[in-house]
């Protein structure tokens, strides 16, 4: 028997659930699922109008305009007139390890003490029940790379999917990247801003020295991991192992031209897979980034320009510069006031300032998946990949039309109820608002 899940039914979930506690992670969906006749944005630049997606045991099996839908026990979602996209990916975030920013120390698990924490793993602190997660799913974000913060080597991030009972269930790719927060090479005058400096100290020089220490550390890690017999175990050095066999990337958080060029050293001298995170000034060196094959995660599009005389829309135009130069880049949303829920609109801004809409979409789906090393499994709506899919009533990049009606992770139908919708319902009831 065919199960038609209409929009009305999907929304009904909202009013029946009483609290987020009763929003359950969806069980694995065995069997076939069809998303019918949608306008499918593949995530690789292509748009397939009026296309049906066939999903088998959570994997995308095929796409087509005339896929036969069997009459037996399969689930069919009618997406006629709707926009179908790959699930959006936050390529660098602290959801699940930072619940209440700043003021509530007890809710924060994103920053460990010390400079040398390659052995620290964000996933071990990841709270799959974070109240924030469901609000992000409501805006189409289904996967995220959960990154620790800190000084120098802050630890490793893992990629999770946003519908899980525990962090073990959530894990999508373990230890995706090791995070190096590069000290800033920006010249600062002593006493300017918060940090007082001694007048004779050249902060840029001090930063260079610290960067050198990181290089040294990684060289020692490489040497350590090449030993055939280890007499003394060093957990820190051990933890870098995957960097050298390239199953883990080095995410270097930096923004200035010189910082990004120093990041190249980590490719050339140490042979690592390096990703620049931040990259405010990446528009200045796009051809070099391309040449050195360094991808960029633009942490925040919605930012003011660097200099007072920069083009007022420079941050909005930066993705276009990277796109034209052929740099692999992802767009992220690191805004602390909105917990990254506006990822799609950051991409939309890039589309308003030069990217095509599909390129902008790619920057929050397939490109992000490539950078995180999960593009074999997700990032686009292509046969063989996990069915991580969202359906929107209109253009997902534009807040004017974006309305996510369905989301699927590995073919599982996600309950799009979140704390905000519940509170909305609660108070609509108070005021008798229909």
């Amino acid at each position, binding site marked *: 028997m065919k199960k038609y899940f209409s929009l009305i039914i999907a929304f009904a979930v909202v009013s029946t659930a009483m609290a987020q506690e009763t929003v359950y992670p969806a069980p694995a969906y065995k069997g076939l699922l069809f998303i019918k006749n949608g306008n499918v944005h593949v995530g690789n630049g292509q748009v397939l109008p009026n296309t049906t997606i066939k999903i088998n045991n959570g994997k995308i099996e095929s796409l087509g305009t005339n896929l036969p839908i069997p009459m037996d026990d399969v689930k069919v979602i009618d997406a006629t007139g709707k926009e179908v996209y790959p699930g959006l990916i936050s390529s660098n975030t602290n959801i699940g390890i930072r619940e209440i920013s700043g003021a509530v120390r007890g809710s924060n698990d994103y920053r460990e003490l010390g400079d040398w924490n390659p052995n620290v793993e964000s996933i071990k602190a990841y709270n799959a029940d974070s109240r924030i997660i469901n609000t992000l799913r409501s805006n189409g974000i289904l996967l995220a790379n959960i990154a620790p913060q800190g000084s120098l080597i802050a630890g490793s991030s893992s990629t999770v999917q946003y519908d899980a009972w525990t962090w073990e269930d959530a894990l999508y790719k373990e230890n995706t990247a090791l995070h190096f927060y590069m000290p800033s090479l920006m010249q600062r005058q002593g006493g300017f801003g918060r940090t007082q400096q001694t007048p004779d100290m050249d902060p840029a020089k001090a930063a260079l020295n610290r960067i050198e220490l990181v290089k040294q550390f990684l060289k020692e890690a490489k040497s350590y991991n090449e030993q055939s017999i280890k007499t003394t175990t060093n957990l820190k050095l051990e933890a870098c192992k995957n960097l050298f066999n390239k199953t883990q990337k080095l995410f270097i958080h930096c*923004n200035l031209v010189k910082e990004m060029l120093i990041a190249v050293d980590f490719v050339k001298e140490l042979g690592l897979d390096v990703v620049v995170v931040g990259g405010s000034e990446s528009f*200045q060196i796009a051809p070099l980034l391309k040449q050195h094959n360094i991808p960029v995660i633009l942490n925040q599009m919605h930012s003011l320009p660097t200099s*007072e005389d920069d083009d007022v829309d420079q941050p909005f135009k930066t993705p276009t510069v990277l796109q034209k130069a052929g740099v692999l880049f992802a767009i992220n949303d690191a805004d602390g*006031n909105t917990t990254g829920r506006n990822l799609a609109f950051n991409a939309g801004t890039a589309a308003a300032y030069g990217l095509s809409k599909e390129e902008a979409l790619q920057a929050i789906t397939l490109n992000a998946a490539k950078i995180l090393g999960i593009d074999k499994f997700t990032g686009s709506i292509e046969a063989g990949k996990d069915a991580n899919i969202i359906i929107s009533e209109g253009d997902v990049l534009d807040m004017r039309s974006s309305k996510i009606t369905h989301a699927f992770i590995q073919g599982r139908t996600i309950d799009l109820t979140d704390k905000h919708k519940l509170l909305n319902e609660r108070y609509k009831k108070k005021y008798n608002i229909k």
Partner: protein
Amino acid sequence: MRQLKTAVILLLLSISSGTVICQETFPVNGVADTRSGTYVFTNATIVKDASNASIQGSLLIKEGKIVAVGNAISIPKEAIVIDCKGKYIYPSFIDIYSDYGIPVPQRTGGFNFNQPAQLTSNTKGAVGWNQAIKSEVNGVSIFSADDSKAKDLRAAGFGLVLTHQKDGIARGTGAVVSLANKADNLVIIKDKASSHYSFSKGTSTQSYPGSMMGSIALLRQSFLDGQWYKNQSSSTGKANGEGLNLTLQAWNNNLAYPLIFDANDKWNDIRADRIGDEFGVQFIIKGGGNEYQRIKEISGTKASYILPLNFPQSMDVEDPNDARFISLGTLKHWEMAAGNAAAFEKAGINFCITTADLRDSKQFMSSLRKSIEAGLSETKALEALTKVPATLLNIYNEAGSIEAGKWANFIITNGPVFNEKTDLLQNWIQGEKYEIKDDLTDQIKGNYSLVINGTKNFSLDVKSSSSADVLLKDTVAAKFVSNGKIVSINFAETKRGKKGYRLSGVSNGNNWSGTGVDSSGNAVWWTAAFNKALPEKADSAKRKKTYHSGELTYPLGNYGIKETPKAETILFKNATVWTNEKDGIVANTDVLVQNGKIISIGKNLNNSGAKIIDGTGKHLTPGIIDEHSHIAVSSINEGGQSVTSEVRIGDNLNPDDVDIYRQLAGGVTTSHILHGSANTIGGQTQLIKLRWGANDEELKYKGADGFIKFALGENVKRTSSSANNRFPDTRMGVEEVQMDAFTRAKDYENALKGPNAKNVRRDLELDALVEIMNKKRFITCHSYVASEILETIKVAEKFGFSINTFTHILEGYKVADKMKAHGANGSTFSDWWAYKLEVQDAIPYNAGIMHNVGLNVAINSDDAEMARRLNQEAAKIVKYSGISEEDAFKMVTLNPAKMLHIDNKVGSIKAGKDADLVLWSDNPLSIYAKPEKTLVDGAVYFDIDKDAAMRKEIANEKNRLILKMLEEKKSGGSSGAAMPSFRRVNTCMDATHQHGLLDIHEDENAQ
């Protein structure tokens, strides 16, 4: 015993100078040695003052004073004659802004948000309440001459300085002292000559004031307190309830002197002057060197100015990545700063010049010459260093020119004083000589007849004290050294020959004589006699540098404009017009704008004189109004106390903030600039229109109701501080702060109406609260959670007023019905949450629910970046709550206009309203929409095409200046490291949004 010792030391120190005046009460160890110091300087070119032509004549001094000056003065027999042929004599300079001889106080600790606040003064004694008001300090009491410092100032030509302690907001009095090396008693010319003020609290560790506007408020209140104290204490010397207050006593006394305000920046200059105007005093203003950027406004202050010459140093811009972070404004200021004094002269503003702020007073003369190159006349320069400061200090009868009866303070130079090649030779102060540079070269330069052994004649050209040529068949360079007395000459008779002489001797004026040996070792004797002067070399020296600079823009660089945009007659044709009136959104419609107003809206409008703008496919909307903004100010939070209703954002607007332009580019035309949320009762707000390029007064939205910021919850109880000691620490306490404040205000208001009204101390803090209770000032209240919203409503109702607007108000949806009953508006964010505990229940449906309950709802920014996308924030309310697009867009236009009580002027497109309009490329709720034109009062302030042209201009101008800096480095100019042009961005404490790399968040009053 000690006195004796001092006298001995003084005697020893001054042994080299001319006059020794005995101090009557000071015993002398040894034999008295009083001299009259009678000198006459003859044959000099004497410049008596800047306004009169120089004279050739003599100057007679005695006992430290000038006795006579002129070309026919009678010279007493006892006068020691100093021939000044070829020399110039000028009055010594006067520096009116110095702390010479006064200790520089060091600050211990300071305000740090995480440290406990210091709520009372640390100063001991019967002084005032605020540690930064130091009126009781008298410069003369803490002055002690410091000859190492005096030496440098004398070398720069100075004879007198006005010195005071540069510390605090009121700094007490200053003294005029000479730079002579004498006992402190003798160098003090005037013990109380001035009274000093600033905006900087200096070493005060007291929390209040912690902001520019707090400093202004404190000054204002101090003027009022002084007046009150004077009235109260006229009979007893003490005020009722106040007791003896030495600070206020001194405050009042100090108003009798010339009042000098250390403002240090063009806008601060104007702020200082306004305070003076308010209390009927005229400050003399110490500027910051950037006044040329707003010379019209500076001229408007009618103040006299003290100008520093600390021009920005050139930077090393070899590295383009470093050079990139230097803003165009910084570069242009580097180029134009030397023209500051010239701009004052041109504008006819009275000014003097100070050595203050120079890293080294040795730079003074070269900096002054730069000013002259940049257009300052030499006459004005001299006047600014002599007559003007003397006149300002009421000591022109004693100093500032070379006239009989005045102090014998003058400098002797070997040329016109401001010429590049001129040296200052001597500086005479109080009749005593201070050698600065010998003029040996001048003394010995010339052609001499050298005769060896009485027979052998040579012609000797002495070019300087270390070089001379012997003229034979060849011109042979001699090894020549003279120290003025001892001469040695060593030369060969031919260029390559070995035969020659080594001579040594003594100079007796124009005749030299001595002995020596020839190259064979035979002893010789010699004489040399001055023959004639060397021919002056034609002035092949450097051509006079031509001063060239780029154009002045408002503000300087960084998208500054050259001319204020004018209101135009514009006809928008065929646009989709979002009227916000009952017509709603109308397609294919024309709008005519004239004289800053909207004239008509309709189909097929015509106006022959109008500029036609085709709106086909475009959307025309009212300008965006941001109810909650923190741009364009010098400070935003006065957190020094829990109640600071006396501070006013409008006191410290900063029209140079590039975010004004950036937000015009996002369609914003009116912004409500709020005080931050550091305290329960914050400061008075300021409504502005984004008139980019205007001055601070012109930015203000005229005729609007006054508002004030209140705040509740975590910020005001300083939750993020681990060591809060400022009441309140809980929401219970917040309510008590409100109750207490309004209770005090009520009593105050009653007292002002009562029989004893004239004895009531005027309290600016309570004045603002009384205005609120009388519905003359309106509250916008930072608030989050339901409990505090209801609590505040209750307090307001108890005192008979209502909260006009709850801002932030992220739990407004929980109590929307109560807010409505109270009559409040809600101004909120579309989708902020989770950034602190009190926003855990914040939801993006908040605006929608409040709207549906019937509240007037606005979406605001609180963030300089987001403000340029407020249209998109409004669009999110459609997304989350499904309200109509028209209603959503009103949330950033008409609704905020209503809550600001300005909807009769702005917020919709209606005939008669202000022509504040935005032409969008697309539906304004779409992320793809860009403003193409933004009009304020009918003038185009942002135009996407002009913006593109301006970007090119900026790039070209920046490149020109970078090349100029490089050129300067190449030609040997000194340059410092390239320093990025950081910018302070004010936030309300809650915005964690990332700004630019060079932006420094100024969200707390960390000082």
